[in-house]
């Protein structure tokens, strides 16, 4: 079984390095957890700096449901100034959203005590590849 998680990790790895036109892979802020954490601990986390100085934080816990799935995830995308642009996560704290637990937050972080409004996710199946493709489509096309 560990093998499936390893394959998933390496496909993410290859996808990252296939996206060098958009990602700043030589930026010192770039980081990706190692394969052993994916294979043994089922965890993958990454900080991906983009060429326009925006940045994506990815936090993923993997599980198996016939195929490897991202059972728990958060993708937080910030602009060059450090303002959040969007956030996909599947914490179960928004049961009112039609795509529960999957949801999307848009725009800057809320003011202290303010509500961080959630929206239906605009990606049918949220995972590393679909989030990166959505960012490419919206901000790099």
């Amino acid at each position: 079984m560990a093998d499936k998680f390893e394959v998933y990790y390496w496909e993410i790895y290859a996808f990252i390095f296939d996206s060098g036109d958009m990602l700043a892979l030589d930026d010192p802020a770039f980081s990706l957890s190692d394969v052993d954490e994916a294979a043994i601990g089922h965890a993958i986390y990454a900080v991906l700096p983009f060429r326009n100085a925006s940045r994506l934080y990815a936090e993923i816990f993997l599980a198996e449901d016939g195929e490897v799935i991202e059972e728990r995830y958060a993708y937080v995308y910030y602009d060059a100034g450090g303002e959040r642009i969007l956030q996909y996560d599947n914490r179960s704290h928004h049961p009112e959203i039609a795509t529960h637990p999957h949801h999307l937050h848009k725009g800057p972080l809320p003011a202290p005590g303010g509500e961080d409004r959630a929206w239906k996710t605009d990606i049918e199946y949220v995972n590393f590849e679909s989030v990166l493709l959505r960012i490419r489509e919206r901000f790099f096309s």
Partner: protein
Amino acid sequence: MSTLIAIPDELVEQVKSVTGMKLEQFLLDAARRQVRQIRAQQLRTEYEHTHQRLTPQQVYKRTLDQVAAFELKYGLPSEQFLREFESGALNEDRGDWTALYRWRIMAYSLRRMEQEYGFTRPA
């Protein structure tokens, strides 16, 4: 050097069901996916030859250290944290927005390794 890729029959059938402008994009995506899988296998093989793999015990210890640091910082046991964070009773740390998402992933990872390998936290 060019890379030759084999196209599986099922992919050919899928292609037949796609028409018009979408066909070009579909073929492009399929080819990219195939190339990426080949590249992933190459990266994996290279890594196997150049890196010493960690044992489950080593990964567990490293994860536990990270989880313990979060518990100390936020003054909360991980199981309670997971309940409260998932339900929304606890919100993100405004000073470090992604920190609790990292703790969440690490806590699930730790729990999984304890279930699969029988590791236990030292008292």
